[in-house]
C-alpha cells in the first residue's frame, strides 16, 4: 500500500514528493489534516453515541429519552456540549491546581491518540504502524494516569477512591487484554492492525473468533476486559455514582468535566473497533478478494461501511449490557481478573499454539471445525434474538392488557 500523502501530493502538484523542497511542510500539514479529521470523527462519534445511548437506554427502560432539541432530539448532544462549555470552570479550594488542570489533557490525548492506529476500511488508517495493537494498548494506558491525577488533585475522598479503584482496575485488566490478543497475533504473525484484518476473511468461518474454542474463549475474555478498561458497567467502579458520588470526576465542572464523558464514549468506539478488527474480520467483504478491493474506490467505501456496521453492533451490545447489568464489587472485579481471566487466557494461548500445529488454517479438518464453530456462534445469536423477542412479546401483551391499546407505533412517531 502506497502512502496516501504521497499519492495526494503527486496528484495535486504533478511532481514526485522526493524531488520537492516542500515535502516536510507538506507532511506537517498532512499530519494536522489527518489529526483534524480523526478528532472530528471521534468527537462527533462520542457526541452522537451519547445521544444514541440515551435513546437506547430510554427504550430499555420504557421511557422516552431526549426528544426536544432538534427532530427527535438528535441535537441534544450539541446542546449538552454547549451547556457544559458555558458552565463555570470551578476548581475546588484546596485542589492541586496544576494537576487538576492537567488531568483532562492526559485522558483526552490517551484516548484520542488510539484512533491513529485504528483502521476504518481497506487502506484507510492514519498510520499503519507495524506495532499497531501494541501502540493502542500503550497509549490508552495513559488514560489511567489522567484519572489518577484528577482524582488525587481534587482533594476529595470520593474522587480519590475513584482514582485508586481505576488504578487497580486498569492495572489488573491490562494483562488479560494483552494476553487474550496474543492468539490473534500468533495467527497473523504481525502486530499491524491492517495485517490482522487481511489475514482474516469475509465470511464468519474466516474470522479469528471461530478459529478454535480457544480463540472463542479469548474473544470473550477480551470483550470483558475491554469493558473493564473502558469503565463500562458492570465494571464502572471508578465512577460508581451510587457508591462514590461520581468517582474521580466528582469535583470537575464545565469543559474539564466534558472531557471525561467524551473520552468514555470515544473509548466505546476504540473498544468495539478493537473487538471487530481482531476477532470479527474487520472490514473484510465476503466473496471479494483483496486485489479487487484495492482497485475500486466503491469497494473501499463498502469496506468502510462493513467495518462501521460491525463496530456499531458491538457498540450496541456494550450499551445494552450497561443498561441491563448491575455493578460488581471491587474485590470481585480483581478476583474475576486474576483467578479466571488471566489463567484461562494463558491456557488459551497454549491451546491455540497446539491447535495451529494440529489443524492448520487451510486444512480440511481446520475448515470443518471453523464451520462448526461459526454454527455455534449463529445459534448463540439466534438464542439472543429469541430471548429479546420473548420478552418483547410478553411486555407487549401485558401493556395491551393494561392500557387496552396497541403498544406498537411507527418509529417516525416516536414520542
Amino acid at each position, binding site marked *: 500500500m502506497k502512502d496516501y500523502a504521497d499519492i495526494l501530493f503527486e496528484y495535486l502538484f504533478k511532481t514526485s514528493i522526493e524531488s520537492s523542497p516542500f515535502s516536510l511542510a507538506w507532511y506537517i500539514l498532512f499530519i494536522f489534516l489527518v489529526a483534524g479529521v480523526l478528532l472530528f470523527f471521534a468527537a462527533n462519534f462520542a457526541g452522537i453515541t451519547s445521544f444514541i445511548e440515551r435513546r437506547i*437506554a430510554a427504550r*430499555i*427502560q*420504557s*421511557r422516552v429519552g431526549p426528544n426536544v432539541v432538534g427532530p427527535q432530539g438528535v441535537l441534544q448532544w450539541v446542546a449538552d456540549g454547549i451547556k457544559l462549555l458555558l458552565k463555570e470552570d470551578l476548581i475546588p479550594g484546596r485542589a492541586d491546581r496544576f494537576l487538576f488542570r492537567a488531568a483532562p489533557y492526559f485522558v483526552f490525548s490517551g484516548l484520542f491518540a488510539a484512533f491513529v492506529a485504528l483502521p476504518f476500511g481497506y487502506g484507510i488508517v492514519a498510520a499503519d504502524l507495524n506495532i499497531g495493537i501494541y501502540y493502542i494498548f500503550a497509549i490508552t494506558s495513559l488514560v489511567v494516569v489522567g484519572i489518577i491525577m484528577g482524582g488525587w488533585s481534587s482533594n476529595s*475522598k470520593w474522587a480519590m*477512591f475513584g482514582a*485508586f*479503584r481505576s488504578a487497580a482496575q486498569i492495572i489488573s485488566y491490562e494483562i488479560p487484554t494483552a494476553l487474550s490478543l496474543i492468539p490473534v497475533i500468533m495467527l497473523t504473525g504481525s502486530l499491524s492492525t491492517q495485517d490482522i484484518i487481511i489475514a482474516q476473511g469475509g465470511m464468519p468461518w474466516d474470522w479469528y473468533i471461530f478459529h478454535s474454542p480457544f480463540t472463542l474463549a479469548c474473544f470473550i475474555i477480551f470483550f470483558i476486559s475491554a469493558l473493564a478498561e473502558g469503565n463500562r*458497567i*458492570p465494571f*464502572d467502579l471508578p465512577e*460508581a*455514582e*451510587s*457508591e*462514590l*458520588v461520581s468517582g474521580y470526576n466528582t469535583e470537575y465542572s464545565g469543559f474539564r468535566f466534558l472531557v471525561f464523558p467524551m473520552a468514555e464514549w470515544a473509548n466505546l468506539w476504540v473498544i468495539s473497533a478493537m473487538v471487530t478488527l481482531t476477532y470479527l474480520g474487520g472490514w473484510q467483504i465476503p466473496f471479494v478478494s483483496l486485489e479487487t478491493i484495492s482497485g475500486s474506490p466503491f469497494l473501499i467505501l463498502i469496506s468502510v461501511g462493513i467495518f462501521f456496521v460491525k463496530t456499531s453492533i458491538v457498540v450496541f451490545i456494550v450499551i445494552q449490557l450497561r*443498561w*441491563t*447489568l*448491575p*455493578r*460488581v*464489587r*471491587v*474485590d*470481585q472485579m480483581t478476583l474475576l481478573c486474576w483467578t479466571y481471566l488471566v489463567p484461562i487466557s494463558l491456557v488459551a494461548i497454549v491451546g491455540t499454539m497446539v491447535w495451529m500445529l494440529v489443524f492448520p488454517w487451510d486444512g480440511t479438518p481446520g475448515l470443518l471445525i471453523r464451520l462448526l464453530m461459526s454454527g455455534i456462534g449463529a445459534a448463540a445469536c439466534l438464542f439472543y434474538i429469541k430471548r429479546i423477542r420473548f*420478552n418483547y412479546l*410478553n*411486555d407487549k401483551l*401485558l*401493556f395491551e*392488557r*393494561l392500557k387496552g391499546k396497541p403498544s406498537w407505533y411507527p418509529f417516525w412517531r416516536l414520542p
Partner: protein
Amino acid sequence: MERSGNADLKHLKPQIAPFREEMILNMGPQHPSTHGVLNFLIVTDGEVIHQALPNVGYLHRGFEKLAEQTPYTTFIPYTDRIDYLAAMFGNHAYVLAVEKLAEIEVPGRAEFLRVIVCELNRIASHLISTGALALDIGATTPFVHWIRERECINDIMEAICGARLTYNYMRIGGVSRDINESIADQILKFLDHFEPMIDEYNRLISFNEIFIKRLANVAVISQIDAVNFGLVGPNLRGSGIEMDIRKIMPYSVYDRFDFDVPFGEGFKGTLGDSYDRYFVRILEIKESCSIVRQALSKLPKGNIKAKVKRKLKIKENECYSSVESARGEMGMYLVSDGTDKPYRLKIKTGSFTAMSIVEKVSQRLMVADLIAFIGSLDVVAPEIDR
C-alpha cells in the same frame, strides 16, 4: 484537616478512634444512595470499613410534639409525612390508636377499604425499596420499570383519595371516600398486569448472577441479633423469624384473609443476608396482591364512616396500637387527658431500629457493601427521625 471543626464529629468523636492510616469518610447527608438525608461516619483505610456510625436527626420535624398541640382529627395529615413512601400505614396506625382510645366501632366496608389501600401502598413501597436496592447496586433499569408500575398504583390512589403520595385518606371511624365499580376494575386490571411483571422483574434482576453475588452472604444479621436490636418487618423476617403483626396480633380485618408470611430461608446464601431481606420483599409483594384480590371480592356494602363527633374529646386513658407497615411494626402510643388534643404521642418506626444494627453489621464490610446493606434495610430518612 480540621476535624475538630466538624459539628457531626463533635458528639460522635468519643466513639471514633481512627488509627494512623485510617481516615474518616463522611457518607451523606448529600450522598446519592443514603436514601434521604442520612449521615454515616465511616472509619476506613481504603475499601474496607472498620467502623460505620449512623448519624441520624437531619430530618427531625418534631411530630410527637406537634401531636400534643393538634386536635385528634387534624393530626392525620401529619402522619402521612412520617413515612412518605407508605403514607397509609401512618394514617392507619394513628386512627387505630384513636379509635381504640375513644372506643369507636368502624364499619366493615371501611375496614376492607383500609386493607385494600394499605396493601396497595405496601406494594408501592416495596417497589421503591427493591428497585432502589438494584439502583444502589448499579442497575438502573429495574428501578425505572418498578417506578412505572408504581405509577399505576399512584393513579389508583389518586382515583380513590385524590392524592398520589401523601394520602390523608383515613378518618377516625372510617375512611374519607368510597370506591366504585370502575376503581375496583382499575385495581383488578392493574393486578392482572402486575403479577406476571414480578416474574419478569425476577428474570431481569433477582436471579442475575452479579446481583446475587453482590447481595448473598453480605451483611448477615443473625436471628439473635435481629431480635436483640429490635428489627421489625421484612428485615426481621429476612433473618428467618416469622413475625408479622398482621398474623400475631391481627388488627382491622386481617384475620379474615388467607395469606402467607414470607420469611428468609437463605435463598441464595446465608440466612439473614441482604439477599434474603430483598427477596422477602419480592415475595411479600405477591402476598399483598392476593390480599387485595381477596378484599375486593369480599368487600361488604354499607357505610364507610362511623359517626364521630367533630370535636373529639377522649377521657383520660392510654393505649398502644401497631400496624405492620411496609418497614415493619409501626406503633403509636397515645395518652389522652380529657381534652381534644393528645397528652402524648410516641411513634415507633421500623427504620429507626434498623439503623441501630448498622454499626454492628457493617464492620469489615466494603464501602460498596454498606450501600447494599442500607438499601436492603430499606430505611427511609423521615421515618427514622419523625
